[in-house]
């Protein structure tokens, strides 16, 4: 055993010396390789943690949201709907929600205005999200004015700012009293944006939704299950930028492996010829090259993965922020709770380390089994 280990160590010594002879090329290869792993691992870690966060946070969302549709568009719930729902079996609680969007031309950002019944806000006061407070530069006690869609200017006092740690769900929120909301958006009493229903038994949710759809043919029930599924597919690898990124990374990786697999440089051929001529066996040459591939790919994987971990969970995936931000002015600052999927990491390992190690062996084997004299002469 000791002899075997010692032999492998000598092979590694030789491999490293051989790699050091083409230092710039191999270092460049290692960096590019690590960068590809970094990109793939960053997207993988970020999207998985985000999906987990969405699952945990939105587990508290209402079981059913009832929207009214007019000509395929979301419309206000007219008076009487809430009463007409009556006492549906299984429904614990039903409530009309008031919320809407406001475009703030001052900073060119969109806000979500929402009535917070449980906060009992005094008329003329607001509670705003930390993202909004940062963008508009406001603090508790400050006054803030918004021009309503009717053209009338409304001035509010900031009563409080929502905790910065909750920005992932509240960065753009503006909480206000019902009276202020109705006055600001000119929504008459009795109208609501939508209706939420709490259903205690998960088995009853579909029945409730079915009954609602029957009772209100112009409505659309949205189940929590569907909300969760929407976020479950967020940043799915099959779509958009993620697909483009993954495809590019895989193509780059394929080129890398192809370059290795398609042939050896004249230097490498001569080196193998000399080794064979001085008595190395084909197996030794293969083992030496196996170590070369394994050391390079393993180092690139570990380097890329560790950099991705630190980037996503310690630097809040800052390199991905411009992609996520899009044209939005208001972007939440959030730290994801690290959830690492072992299966995903294993898949990444197998897809990045093994093909490269295998790709290095094939051309070497082809050269190593030919006559050393022929190899050296080219």
């Amino acid at each position, binding site marked *: 055993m000791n002899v075997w280990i010692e032999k492998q*160590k000598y092979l*590694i*010594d030789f491999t*490293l*010396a051989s790699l050091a002879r083409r230092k710039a090329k191999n270092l460049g290869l290692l960096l590019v390789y690590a960068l590809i792993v970094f990109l793939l691992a960053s997207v993988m870690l970020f999207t998985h943690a985000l999906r987990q966060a969405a699952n*945990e*946070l*939105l*587990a*508290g969302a209402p079981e059913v*949201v009832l*929207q009214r*549709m007019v000509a*395929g568009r*979301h419309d206000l719930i007219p008076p009487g709907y809430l009463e007409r729902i009556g006492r549906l079996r299984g429904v614990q609680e039903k409530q009309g929600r008031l919320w809407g*969007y406001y475009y703030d031309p001052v900073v060119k*950002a*969109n*806000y979500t205005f929402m009535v*917070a019944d449980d906060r009992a806000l005094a008329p003329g006061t607001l509670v705003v*999200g930390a993202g909004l407070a940062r963008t508009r530069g406001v603090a508790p006690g400050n006054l803030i004015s918004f021009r309503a869609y009717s053209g009338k200017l409304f001035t509010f006092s900031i009563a409080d700012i*929502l905790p910065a*740690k909750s920005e*992932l*769900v*509240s960065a*753009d*929120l503006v*909480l206000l009293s019902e009276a202020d909301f109705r006055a600001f958006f000119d929504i008459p009493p009795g109208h609501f944006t939508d209706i*939420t229903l709490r259903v205690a038994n998960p088995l009853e949710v*579909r029945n409730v939704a*079915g009954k609602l*759809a*029957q009772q209100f*043919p112009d409505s*659309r029930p*949205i189940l929590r299950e*569907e*909300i969760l599924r*929407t976020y*479950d*597919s967020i940043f*799915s690898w099959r*779509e958009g*930028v993620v697909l483009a990124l993954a495809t590019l990374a895989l193509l780059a990786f394929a080129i890398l492996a192809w370059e290795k697999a398609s042939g050896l440089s004249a230097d490498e051929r001569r080196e193998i010829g000399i080794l064979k001529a001085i008595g190395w066996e084909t197996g030794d040459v293969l083992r030496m090259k196996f170590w070369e591939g394994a050391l390079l790919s*393993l*180092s690139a994987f570990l380097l890329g*993965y*560790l950099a991705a*971990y630190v980037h996503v969970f310690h630097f809040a995936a800052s390199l991905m922020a411009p*992609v*996520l931000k*899009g*044209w*939005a002015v208001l*972007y939440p600052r959030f730290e994801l*709770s*690290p*959830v*690492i999927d072992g299966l995903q990491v294993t898949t990444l390992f197998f897809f990045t380390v093994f093909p490269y190690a295998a790709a290095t062996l094939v051309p070497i084997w082809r050269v190593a089994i030919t006559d050393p004299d022929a190899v050296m002469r080219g």
Partner: protein
Amino acid sequence: MPATRPSHLALSVLCCAGALFAASFADAARLRQQRAAAGYEMQVLVRQLQLTDLCLFTEARYTRHPSQADLHSPFQDHPLALEHFPSGSLLLPPAILSNHYERLDRKAEVPD
């Protein structure tokens, strides 16, 4: 004193990187615990305000609340308008619009 063999150096570096790899899982557990309070705070807020979506993309209403959007919202500007917000390329349409796996509304009951 004998010089350090390159193989020893390489294997030590790889072992260190492997240890850091393992440590990343321990660090993840530590951070999860540290950030649990913020997660709980957000869960309370979601329940209190009956929120339905994450505040990830604020640039358009259908990306701010993807689960509440209707089929027409990305194409609202004019009949031939294509969806043009960058985050539209990151999000799938809400599940309710793309996958009717069960009859929930009157759709199938109304004759064509």
